[in-house]
């Protein structure tokens, strides 16, 4: 029977009621008394020297309070980077300054030059148009390989070149991998591009800064996935505001997908400016601004080589990647192509020798950082594409080639050659499940149906691994992270037994307000409705690292479990006192504390009341009150995995691809709320299909963004997608966190792009177009048609 509450129940989301009735409170819904409005004047050219900025006409316009330029930010820090990568020669990466407003040069279209603060948004916008900026345009730096050539135009004049770092991993394996490839019976090589994307949460970014002249406290309301991280980065590194004078609130946030992790210049601006003008300052991004100022994702150019022996065992893998950083280093940008990419190149396979080289390059484009999956989709795409190509070259079944090389269920825990240790998994089980769900045994009949209609049908398989819940802090510190990666929870039990859980994690669509109480309620045997989650405000939640990397339940949920365990321990002491029994004999079930082997019991509410009205209470042994905090620092990543199978139909006359079916068979370990988990997979798969078929962040050679609106950037719409078949019944629980959970937020976006592309290639081969071995994403009709026709 389905459970009706607690762990494993598809509890309906309580947050939905406010969202469905227009009573959500997103940042743009917040308007403060005496508020002013900021409008950013942004660079219209990709690269140029600023000769002069004349703000006099703007300053004279109606409603203008103040016009800001870089001159107003002298003495203010740059926007910091949160991860320092060390290159393969032992040197730190190049880390150019990222000013809040452009200093002397602009380096991408959208680079902010000046800001007008005015009485209304319309007045601020009008005045910004009156600012005269004299810029001498410089050549755009767009192609990564050309950017590294001798004599290339430099994005940052104070650096030697445009190379951020040249990273090798595992550097000691470099020669052994070369040798293994040279000796291999068969080597499959693939050159590919992982297309640049824009995250596009439906809520554009918003920031409201509010300086209180009386207390000299600052409050920043912002569309963030991690308000504590923003408080730390902005307070400590940009504006020099100590944490106790700075409160960051991320209220209801309308999606993030990575793009709202980072500390952005606009946040620092409104906070700083509110103290300058002594009034609140609000900035609301337009979608057009979002396209040029939100950090982009992906943008890797890769050559991958897979070596096999005569029996088709993988013997070595070599990956050479160029990773676009954009004009400045966004918060976590350097870690994406390195530690979140190189460590995943074993995939689900027993490949003994792996080497990856990554050259990170500055270009005159918007900064690039994590987007749903972040490094792991790039690793999975190249691996699952090259395996598919190898199967085709060898004339073997792509599922069989994968099975032959899978890590076997009995081999866990498994030490990969790329540092990480997989704790659990059963890849054979997920692949078998996925193939069964996808109806592979009747696929040939469906092919014949398509053929009869002049269409080409294809089936694509991908099997992915991801590393979630990034951890532990001491390890990531060694790898260059400038932050810890623990999570926190305070469980506050109120006198009458209701509970507030304050988490450092943050929900922007993931359903924490519903799923987190399921865990606490299950542990205590009480109704979920008695537990409420508080998140998103640094003033009333413990220091936490926020939500990204599928970490909320694995790390944040574990912190909540630890805090709840402390609550149970203390409550048992109180119950033992009330029941005049030994603490060791107290059992907690269904919200009742009882003495083992007797009918003596006391209810949850009696114990919690005693904690706050301690008349009959062991005051000599324990303090009154029932509130506990825990910080959880995981000992390893978690490793969700799964089989994704895509079925497509290609119209050979037009090149149009239609996704007819998509199956996801995932192993997420234990699942708290299946309904929410399935929703996460649906959304991730939609983004992955979007990357594979529709989405592309395109620049022209002058650095102008060609896909700068929803008229140009193809977001997946309802009629682009099928219903999805998803399953998470293959469960190998995580062994190192208390819930046995692995995380599910990014899986869909990681596993789906190679499944889609593999399916299209399969369709073309079945249609006799065997010359097509690869098409770069997105597989638009024009690209597919050109590939079919050899163009």
């Amino acid at each position: 029977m389905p459970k009706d509450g607690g762990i494993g129940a598809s509890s309906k989301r309580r947050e939905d009621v406010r969202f469905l009735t227009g009573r959500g409170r997103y940042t743009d819904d917040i308007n403060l008394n005496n508020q002013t409005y900021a409008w950013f004047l942004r660079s219209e050219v990709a690269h140029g020297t600023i000769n002069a900025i004349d703000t006099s006409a703007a300053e004279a316009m109606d409603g203008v309070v103040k016009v800001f330029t870089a001159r107003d930010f002298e003495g203010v820090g740059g926007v910091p980077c949160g991860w320092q990568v060390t290159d393969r020669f032992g040197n730190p990466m190049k880390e150019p300054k990222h000013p809040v407003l452009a200093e002397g040069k602009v380096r991408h279209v959208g680079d902010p030059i000046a800001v007008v603060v005015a009485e209304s948004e319309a007045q601020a916008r009008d005045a910004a148009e009156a600012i005269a900026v004299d810029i001498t345009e410089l050549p755009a730096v767009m192609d990564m390989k050309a950017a590294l050539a001798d004599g290339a135009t430099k994005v940052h004049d104070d650096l030697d070149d445009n190379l951020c770092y040249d990273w090798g991993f595992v550097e000691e394996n470099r020669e052994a991998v070369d040798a293994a490839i040279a000796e291999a019976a068969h080597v499959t090589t693939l050159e590919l591009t992982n297309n640049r994307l824009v995250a596009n949460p439906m809520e554009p970014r918003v920031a409201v800064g509010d300086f209180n002249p009386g207390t000299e406290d600052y409050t920043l309301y912002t569309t963030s996935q991690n308000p504590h991280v923003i408080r730390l980065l902005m307070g400590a590194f940009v504006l020099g505001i100590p944490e106790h004078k700075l409160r960051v609130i991320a209220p209801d946030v309308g999606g993030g997908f990575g793009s709202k992790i980072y500390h952005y210049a606009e946040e620092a601006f409104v906070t700083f400016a509110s103290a300058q003008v002594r009034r609140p300052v609000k900035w609301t991004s337009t979608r057009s601004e979002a396209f040029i100022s939100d950090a982009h994702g992906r943008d890797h150019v890769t050559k991958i080589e897979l070596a096999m022996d005569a029996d088709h065992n993988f013997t070595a893998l070599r990956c050479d990647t160029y990773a676009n950083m954009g004009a400045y280093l966004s918060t976590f940008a350097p870690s994406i192509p390195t530690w979140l990419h190189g460590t995943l190149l074993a995939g689900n396979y027993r490949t003994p020798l792996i080497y990856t080289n990554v050259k990170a390059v500055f270009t005159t484009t918007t900064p690039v950082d994590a987007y749903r999956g972040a490094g792991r989709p790039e690793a999975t795409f190249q691996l699952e594409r090259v395996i598919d190509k190898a199967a085709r070259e060898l004339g073997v079944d792509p599922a069989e080639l994968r099975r032959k090389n899978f890590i076997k269920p009995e081999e866990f825990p498994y030490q990969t050659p790329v540092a990480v240790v997989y704790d659990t998994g059963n890849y054979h089980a997920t692949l078998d499940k996925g193939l069964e769900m996808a109806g592979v045994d009747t696929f040939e009949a469906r092919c014949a149906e398509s053929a009869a209609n002049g269409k080409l049908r294809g089936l694509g398989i991908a099997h992915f691994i991801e590393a979630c819940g990034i951890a532990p802090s001491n390890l990531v510190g060694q790898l260059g992270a400038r932050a810890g990666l623990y999570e926190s929870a305070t469980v506050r039990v109120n006198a009458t037994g209701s509970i507030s859980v304050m988490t450092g994690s943050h929900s922007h669509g993931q359903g924490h307000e519903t799923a987190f109480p399921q865990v606490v309620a299950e542990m205590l045997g009480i109704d979920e409705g008695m537990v409420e989650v508080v998140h998103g405000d640094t003033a009333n939640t413990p220091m936490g690292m926020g939500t990204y990397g599928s970490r909320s339940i694995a790390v944040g949920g574990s912190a909540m479990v630890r805090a709840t365990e402390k609550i149970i321990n203390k409550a048992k002491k109180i119950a033992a006192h009330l029941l005049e029994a030994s603490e060791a004999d107290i059992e907690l079930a269904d919200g009742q504390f009882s003495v083992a082997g007797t009918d003596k019991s006391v209810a949850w509410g009696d114990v919690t009341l005693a904690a706050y009205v301690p008349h009959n209470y062991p005051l000599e042994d324990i303090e009154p009150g029932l509130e506990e905090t825990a910080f959880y620092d995981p000992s390893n990543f978690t490793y969700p995995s799964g089989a994704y199978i895509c079925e497509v139909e290609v119209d050979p006359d037009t090149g149009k691809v239609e996704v007819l079916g998509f199956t996801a068979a995932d192993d997420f370990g234990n699942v708290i709320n299946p309904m929410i988990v399935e929703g996460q997979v649906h959304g991730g798969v939609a983004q992955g299909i979007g990357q594979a078929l529709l989405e592309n962040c395109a620049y022209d050679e002058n650095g102008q963004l060609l896909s700068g609106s929803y008229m140009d950037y193809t977001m997946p719409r309802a009629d682009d997608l099928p219903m999805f078949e998803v399953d998470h019944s293959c469960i190998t629980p995580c062994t190192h966190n208390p819930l046995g959970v692995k995380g599910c937020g990014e899986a869909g976006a990681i596993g789906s792009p190679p499944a889609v592309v593999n399916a299209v290639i399969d369709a073309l081969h079945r249609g006799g177009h065997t010359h097509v071995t690869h098409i770069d994403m997105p597989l638009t009709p024009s690209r597919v048609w050109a590939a079919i026709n050899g163009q």
Partner: protein
Amino acid sequence: MTSVTITVNGQSRSGDVEGRTLLSTFLRDQLTLTGTHVGCDTSQCGACVVHVDGEAVKACSVLAADVDGAEITTIEGMANADGSLGVIQQAFQDHHGLQCGFCTPGMVMSAAALLKENPKPTEAEVRHYLEGNICRCTGYHNIVKAIMAASGQDVAPPMAAE
């Protein structure tokens, strides 16, 4: 400035607007009906869909001054009289048809307009009708299910653990 009076969710509301003020801006900033969301600036995303005289309209594509005298329904007016969720709203909750909630007001308003003109749509008709509403979270799967369910057609419930 032009004076505009509209009936919103059954109540008469007035305000002074510039010629360029959009209906979405008027609803959000002057009438503080912040349930109507703005997700783009090219009338593509559909987060701002409201009903103007019974028709689904993107509020960012209409000037406030042009709807003087109109009857407007926003997401705030979609619940039952007793405050409980309306049929479409309840179906969205039952079938997990929303995650971050930002596109949701526009989705619900579009769904209501669809079911008014086509009470028993096919899945393909639902998907086609939602062409002007972008959701980044759900992959549309559960939105389509919710609308089908709201139309009284059978759909599978969300999977529950055994």
